[in-house]
């Protein structure tokens, strides 16, 4: 698959839009998942994912093959998400800003709780809500590093490349993100 990705990138850099389409379709789910995890809103996540791919097309000439394509596209998407979150923090009174609201049940795919007893499902829901509240207290950069490590399984070096940071910064962000989540959940339960 890495061979395919390299070939698609080379063809796309030569102006082959179809090859870029293959790249996009290959990574679309992961980029969307990253965006949703950061902004917690489906419409914003779709919009940001689209912006990331348009920007990737425009900047594809600057991609160097000594890096991995997915950390490059993650970097574009991450920066857009962080900008979005900073703008949202500056105008929290915006009535159209529904991004902090949790998704409705209809938006969510079936979870394991759908197949367990109602009281256990309720308990799982409470744990999930407490976790979401704790997650919302993290700095966006810390939440991003944690997500890239835990959900996407990126190495420290890959996270550093995807976020434009040093490895030491990544390690520090991961530690403080986890510590804060643990403390928040302890005080919330």
């Amino acid at each position: 698959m890495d061979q395919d990705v390299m070939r698609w990138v080379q063809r796309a850099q030569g102006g082959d839009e179809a090859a870029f389409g293959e790249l996009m379709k290959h990574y679309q789910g992961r980029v969307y998942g990253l965006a949703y995890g950061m902004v917690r809103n489906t419409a914003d996540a779709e919009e940001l994912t689209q912006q990331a791919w348009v920007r990737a097309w425009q900047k594809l000439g600057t991609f160097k093959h000594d890096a991995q394509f997915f950390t490059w596209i993650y970097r574009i998407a991450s920066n857009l998400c962080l900008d979005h979150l900073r703008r949202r923090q500056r105008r929290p009174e915006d009535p159209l800003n529904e991004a902090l609201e949790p998704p409705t049940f209809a938006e969510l795919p079936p979870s394991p709780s759908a197949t367990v007893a109602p009281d256990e499902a309720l308990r799982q829901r409470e744990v999930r809500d407490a976790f979401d509240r704790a997650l919302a207290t993290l700095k966006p950069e810390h939440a991003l590093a944690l997500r890239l490590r835990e959900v996407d399984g990126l190495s420290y070096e890959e996270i550093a490349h995807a976020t434009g940071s040093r490895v030491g910064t990544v390690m520090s962000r991961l530690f403080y993100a986890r510590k804060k989540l643990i403390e928040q959940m302890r005080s919330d339960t």
Partner: protein
Amino acid sequence: MNCRGAQRALNLRHDGQLMAADGEALGAHLAICPDCQTFAVRMEQVGSQLREEPVPEGPTPEAAWASVQRAIRLAEDGAARRPAWDVGPWLRWASAAALILVVAGGGLLWHGGVAPRETAAGPLALHATQVLRVTTGLEGASTMVYEDEAAGWMVVWVIPAEGGNHAQM
């Protein structure tokens, strides 16, 4: 190893980055510290909570690609329709800087050569990283330039110091 060191070591161990020697010291600490034992368990829970987090289904790759293609066309059409006088961001910034110099010079003349001074931050920093604050000859006034990303306009504000109206160009 104290608790702080143990928590840092747990963080590394969770990511598979802990050195063997530190692992032994961590094990010795965990054996006698219930708080750090709890911390270790919760660290694992944090990871699993994140990984099991449900993500609403997004558009299919085909639908997403169709949208991206439309957006690429729009962006390219927008660039192609850009008027001849609109020669790109660098010259727009340069023009804005020149305009500021003119304003600053005018201010100096108006106030009979008042020494310029650093100004306070402007109130309308829509894009913090793109805001350029400059020194003007209007005593206490501040001038601010930013590019309105949505409209593509270069906006210049000159803000008088003493409760005057904002002047927008």
